């Protein structure tokens, strides 16, 4: 593991096209760093998105999300 990665912050990747907008990730996030988009995705859902900072990499949103591939959490 590189020095850069070790120091990097945890982050969440949400694939807006795979999200069905159930909001469960928002519900469980202890840091409230996920929000729901105003825009509709290709399946007519308002997808969740990561605010871009303060994720701790706890992974709770990953387990709360019913979709296999909509959320990816990286904790360097």
């Amino acid at each position, binding site marked *: 593991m590189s020095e850069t990665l070790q120091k990097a912050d945890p982050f969440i990747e949400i694939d807006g096209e795979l999200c*069905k907008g159930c909001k469960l990730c928002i519900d469980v996030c202890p840091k409230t760093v996920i929000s729901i988009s105003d825009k509709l995705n290709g399946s007519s859902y308002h997808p969740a998105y990561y605010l871009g900072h303060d994720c701790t990499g706890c992974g709770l949103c990953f387990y*709360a999300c*019913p979709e296999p591939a909509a959320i990816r959490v990286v904790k360097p």
Partner: protein
Amino acid sequence: MKVFEKPTSFYPRFERKGGPHKETTHYCPGCGHGNVHKMIAEAMDDLGIRERTVFVSPVGCSVFGYYYFDCGNIQAAHGRAPAVATGIKRANPDSIVISYQGDGDLAAIGTAETLHAANRGENITVFFVNNAIYGMTGGQMAPTTMIGQKTATTPRGRIETEHGNPIRMAEIISTLPAAGYVERVAIGTSKHIMKARKAIRKALTNQVENRGYSFVEILSVCPTGWKMDSPDARDWLLNEMTQVFPLGVYKDDAGERENEWYRPVEPFVPEKVDAYFSAGNFEEADEPIKLDKSLQCKFAGFGGQGILTLGLFMAQVGMRGKLHASWIPSYGPEMRGGTANCSVNLSEARIGTPLVDRPNVLVVMNQPSLEAFEKDVVDGGTILIDSGIVESKPDGDRLNCILIPATKIADEVGTPKVANVVMLGALCAATGAFELDFVEETLRAVVKKRNLVDMNITALKRGYDFVRNGG
């Protein structure tokens, strides 16, 4: 570095799924199935069992398990997943078999299969996703629907005195001695989900270590069927459902059972099956017996007269003579005293149907059978009648009638029970299809009670002589 991402036990793309969206599930937003699938797939990854896992899908929303799990998949008939899982596991004891079922599947139509698989302690893992409603069919009342819960079929709410109470499967199954591990968890808060994740892993680990039957009931949500948004549904689950379905471990005997519930299988060898059924333990004739015409025989009488056995002997004579043979019984529920009949086909050609509607040989050993079947016999057919029992006479112009006091002769031989074999002897003489010696050798090979063989042979000869020589 820790990465939380799609487990590799899922297909990279869900190609089997119809429609354009090949990377999402077919489940509604907020559905609990997605969470459970994800945790199972993750456990399969971590335990390294994907290659030997067979996922049995039920009928219900999760019917399409095979869209998602990159392992062996079978979709079972409604409620039968534990029975199918039993078969897979018994035939392949090294496979990891998951029976994944909803409440309608597991606790309604499949209750019997569920309980008996648990009672046998099948070394399988059952995941029971309980969302208190029939989701796939449009939100009808399920066996686990809560009192007062409104569904499509309980518009005023479930009423105890009309619809019964929600059924608690974890509690019921935990009463069965052979069930190893029974726990109820919930897809609620993160804490609950983590507990569920642990239970799922434990249930699969138990199977890997051959600790027997594991059952994890997962309280889940159906936002669509419940008509709620997802966070509200999770709240309702935690506030209401857990009151009726308390969470916790109901049984855990699995810890002491390592490798105890492994059921090895021996390779399938057809000869073993033959030996088991005592078939083929006689030497066949060198040349197939020649028949003037195929024999379509009907044997009929009271239960207890040995009617079905008589038909079996006849079929075995045919088998030993390298003929095609079929035997099919028809009898009432009584072991003794009811009516019984059987149909036997013997033919040089393959037999299309084992049924005999128009016999050319009829053996009757009681009055009702003569009345029932005489009219079915083809013109010129042979009819053998136990004249000591049957009072009336058949139509002698149309049929070749042989009257023989079989039961009386048998009684003289030693027991009325061999009246059927007297009839067999008479039948051989009347049809001329088989040599007496050949039938005798067959009887010696197939009569199960060895001490009665000689009496049977005597009865056979008496019947034969009666027809050939008039007694």
